[in-house]
Structure formats: C-alpha cells, structure tokens
C-alpha cells in the first residue's frame, strides 16, 4: 500500500454531528463552574504546622548565625557528631569517592543527552 492510498483513506473520514443537548450540557457545566464558590485555602488547619515550620526555621537560622559568630563553630558541635564526620571523610578519601561521583555525573549527563537527542530526532 502506497502513501497516496493511506492519505486518501485516512483523509476521507466522515464527520459526526454533535448531539442536540451538547451545547446545553457544556453551558450548564460552565455556569456551575462560574457560580461555584471558590474553595478557600484552609488557613485555620494549616496555621499550626506553618507556625511550627517558621519557628524551627528561625531557630536553625539563629543557631547557625551564633555558630558562625563564634569562629569555625566546630567546638560548639557535639564530639560524637565530629567523630562521625571524620569517619565519613576518611571513608570518602579511601574509596576515592570524588572520582566515583565524577564518573556518575558524567554517565548521567551522557544518558540524558542521548535521550534528548533521540527524542528530538523522532
């Protein structure tokens, strides 16, 4: 079958006529949409959560600034946390995580580039 045959078959589609109540049905839905009251944002319910989040953020900000003002700030951190950071840092260096991270980033970038290239071509 040639392209011309496909063109002639698919372009001679018979149109259907909308049912008689279609316009009325659409306009009823539109009127309902227009007159329906807007649902307000539930501020009352969200307020406790939002307040807690703002307070936590403020506390974290104040704590951060006070640590920064004291110098490096490490002396203010608990000893367990500092030793945990040291272990992580040592493991990072031993494994050569910098190179692994770089390789992962390059791989992901090349996969993403290929996907975009293929989708643009198709």
């Amino acid at each position, binding site marked *: *079958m040639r*392209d011309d045959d*496909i*063109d002639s*078959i*698919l*372009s001679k*589609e018979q*149109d*259907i*006529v*909308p*049912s008689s109540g*279609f*316009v009325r*049905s*659409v*306009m009823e*839905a*539109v*009127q309902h*949409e*227009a007159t329906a009251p807007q649902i307000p944002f539930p501020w009352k319910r969200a307020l406790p959560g939002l307040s807690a989040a703002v307070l936590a953020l403020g506390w974290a900000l104040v704590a951060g600034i006070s640590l920064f003002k004291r110098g490096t700030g490490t002396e203010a951190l608990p000893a367990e946390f500092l030793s945990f950071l040291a272990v992580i840092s040592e493991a990072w260096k031993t494994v050569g995580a910098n190179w692994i991270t770089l390789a992962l980033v390059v791989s992901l970038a090349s996969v993403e580039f290929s996907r975009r290239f293929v989708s*643009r*071509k*198709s």
Partner: protein
Amino acid sequence: MSAAEDQIMVDRVLAGDTSAFEGLVRRWQGPLINLAYRFCRDRGRAEELSQEAFLRAYRSLDRWRRESAFSTWLFALATNLYCSELMRIPINTIWLGDVAEPRDSRAINGGLEDQDRDRAVRRSVFTLPPKYREALILFYFHDMDVASAARSLGLPEGTVKARLSRGREMLRGKLSQQLAGPASSKKEIS
C-alpha cells in the same frame, strides 16, 4: 463567524458575561467532538472529552495569549487533554486480528473489499505507538496540513514530519501483512 468574533466573545466572557461562552461552544463543538472521536472512536466519550476541553478552555481563557488564533489555542488545549486522558484511560485495544474477515474471497485487492480495507487502515492506526498515532490523527484532521498539526501538538514541524513518515512506514508494514495474507493463500490454492 471569524477569528475577530472569537476574540470579541472571549473578551465578553473575561469581562464576566459567562453566556457569551455559548457562542464559542456553538462554533467549535463540531471540530472538537470530531477531533476527540478520531482519538477514541467512541461517540459518547468524544462528547465527554470535548465537554472537558471546553470547560478547561473556560477556566484558562485568560491564559490565551493573542499571538495565535483562538482556534489554534483551543485545538492545542484539546489535543493535550485528549492525549493525556487516553493515556490515563486507554481505548479498548484493537488488534489487527480483530479486523473483519473479507466477505468474499474473490474480492479485489488481496481479498479485502474497499470498505474492509479502509476499516483495516483506520484500525491499524490505533495499533501504532501514541506519538505516531497522534501525529497521523492530527495531520489528517487538519486536512494534511503539517503546520496546523504541529501547532496542535505543540511540536516543531520537523518532528511532526519525521513522526508522520515513521508512522506511515509502520502502518504500511502492518497493512502489508494484513492485506497480503489472503492473497498469498489464494495463490497457494490456485
């Protein structure tokens, strides 16, 4: 009714005259329902889909940037809705095996009568992957105008042309198997 009249009606709706939207529905109901019908082959669902398209158009009327015609914007919105809705709730998959058998084995064109052949072509469009199917549906809906199809799909013309070409190629492959089947068996018998 012209594009300028569409614009006047849109302005009236945006000014708060909801009833002016009826003019837009009256004007575009046919094309929108027919476009939906080509996507789903179900009259009832086509009307439901186009009603939803009109409702979405009403909700986002203020987002129509007047750089393009109202119809272009409306078709793009409707196409987007139809594609995503049919992805969400697909139509009943039609396999080529379900296509009606030829009524008369002596009929022309490899055993399928013209009507059956046309039906087979239309059905096989639905067996294509969505991106090729959508390109083909929009291309023929817009009277084989690639630019209009591309605007409705929100894609560059080159992409639509490539999809049309690949879609037709896949369609030919599917149809050649379907149409050649009865003919080859006839040869074997004779």
